[in-house]
């Protein structure tokens, strides 16, 4: 950084560094698996991962409500399995990762593409070729378009944000607000018209409504620039996305479904499904997934608060995390 300001060694908490390293590793392909990926074999026995997609039927909401009438679904949430690195094989090997021994495909977590039934994105041939090209050059980004926008501190976008790390849901009269590591989505519940079509956004422009236990969100104005994972899947700026967040009655799980329609790159629409679980005071903090601490206060009760800053840390230090060549390629 060439600003005439003093520098000081960062004293950020350790797990913040984990995020930084995870981001940095996006480009140091083959040398490090993202530290955040739960697929990394642990030194001790790994906990049993629930890879099922629970049945949560849409229906009336029978849980608690907020004073404005919304179902109360506020809190910390995160995906139940897999990493964000690979869309169609969430426990498989993705671009830039070292080879490792894998159990057979049927024992690994299912594709996040739940429809069509083959679990693959129904791409037009040219678009599939672009995905393969991205995968080929991920480790050696000889062109700027092979650098993951995430490594440049762009938001993970839709739907990647829902299966990358954890997130928080806040609710206010007229709004549901999603906070991600990098990126914030403000869902407007008042049915105001969407922004003009020429405005394209990393987080899209969202309008939502509650149908019983399901938050239904229509997204327009999406810029299509984020990937769906290191595996490189993408859509265009002409995409329309309808999301359904269906919450179970005891507030422990929700299923996220995104119906993605884009005649520019697809031969037909497809659906992404992500099972998501709640994190509460009963859970131990986990870097990036549930990065909380106990707040300091005079009272006796346990107050949990998010321990990180929701800004991409690299973003105020230029592109220092990019290798020289990739940075120069910008």
């Amino acid at each position, binding site marked *: 950084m*060439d*600003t*005439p*300001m003093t*520098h*000081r060694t*960062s*004293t*950020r*908490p350790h797990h913040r560094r984990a995020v930084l390293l995870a981001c940095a590793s996006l480009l140091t392909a083959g040398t490090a698996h993202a530290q955040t990926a739960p697929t990394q074999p642990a030194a001790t026995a790994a906990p049993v991962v629930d890879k099922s997609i629970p049945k949560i039927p849409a229906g009336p909401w029978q849980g608690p409500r907020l*004073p404005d009438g919304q179902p109360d679904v506020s809190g910390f949430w995160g995906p139940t399995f897999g990493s964000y690195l690979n869309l169609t094989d969430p426990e498989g090997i993705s671009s830039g990762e070292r080879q490792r021994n894998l159990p057979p495909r049927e024992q690994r977590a299912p594709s996040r593409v739940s429809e069509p039934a083959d679990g693959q994105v129904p791409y037009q041939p*040219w*678009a599939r070729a*672009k995905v393969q*090209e*991205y995968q080929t050059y991920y480790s050696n980004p000889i062109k*700027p*378009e092979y*650098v993951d*926008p995430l490594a*440049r*501190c*762009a*938001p993970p976008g839709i739907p990647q944000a829902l299966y990358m790390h954890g997130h928080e849901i*806040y609710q*206010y009269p007229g709004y549901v*607000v999603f*906070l991600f590591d990098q*990126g*914030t989505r*403000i869902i*407007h519940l008042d049915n*105001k*018209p969407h*922004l003009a079509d020429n*405005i394209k*956004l*990393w*987080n899209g422009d969202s309008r939502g409504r509650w149908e019983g236990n399901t938050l239904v969100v229509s997204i327009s104005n999406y*810029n299509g*620039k984020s990937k769906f994972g290191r595996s490189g899947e*993408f*859509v265009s*700026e002409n995409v329309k996305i309808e999301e359904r967040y269906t919450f179970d009655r005891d507030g422990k799980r929700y299923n996220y479904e995104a119906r993605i329609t884009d005649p520019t790159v697809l031969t037909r629409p497809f659906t992404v499904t992500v099972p998501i679980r709640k994190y509460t005071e009963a859970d131990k903090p986990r870097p990036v997934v549930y990065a909380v601490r106990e*707040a*300091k*206060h*005079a009272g006796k009760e346990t*107050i949990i*608060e*998010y*321990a990180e*800053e*929701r*800004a991409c840390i690299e*973003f*105020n*230090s*230029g592109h220092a995390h990019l290798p020289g060549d990739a940075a120069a390629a*910008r």
Partner: protein
Amino acid sequence: MTDAPIPARPPRGACLLAAGLMLLASQLAFAHDAIPRLPNGKPDFSGIWQTLTPADDDLEPHAARKDAAPGAGVVEGKFIPYLPQALAQKKKNFEARETADPRSKGWTLGVPRGIYYPEPFQIFQRPRDLKLVFQFGHTVRTIHTNQTEHPDVIGDLLSGDSRGRWDGDTLVVDARNFTDQTWLDRAGNFHSNDLHVVERWTYLDANTVEYKATLEDPQVYSRPWTLGVILHRHREKDFQLIEDYRFTLDFDQYYPPKRDKN
């Protein structure tokens, strides 16, 4: 004939007095109820806010420049009480402002700059906290209002750590643990990572908030000093924040992949 008693007619003066008292009472009630409140009675700052002052061009009094509208300044006492070495740094920053201003790179504005930067920000408020979402950078700052304190161990943060309390209807916020990577305006006014900010947020009426920030930084200023701006509520029909990830514009054109032209 009826047996009902005829009510005694009250003296005229008493009527006027009563009417006057009622009017006063209703005005008091109006003054009390005129600002939005949460169910717990605390002022509710939820809404989309923006200042009209050119504070972000330069907090201090300044004539028009090619890159700044003139401004009378928003600093109490007109000028920031820099220590001599810091004043020299500020002048260097000013000369290099076109490229050195973190804002020109789209980086997080920090505190208090995000509040008077000339783009809207939205406050979402609950009894336990306020979330401030800034259009510029789409960053989020949390002000805790649940009697919690600054953590004992915490790193430097772009927007610091903010703990609020209520002084009557004024929200008083203590913010610290800042990085030195943000500026205060486009004129190169700056701080170190010893910055400590105390903010006071007070409704003037339902759509206007007085914002004051007292900045203390023994590495940079000879004494604490205070700036003040007025924030106005956006009331345009269907007004909403539009994310401004300006730092992405440098690489915007590389995504998404395009179909090759044959």
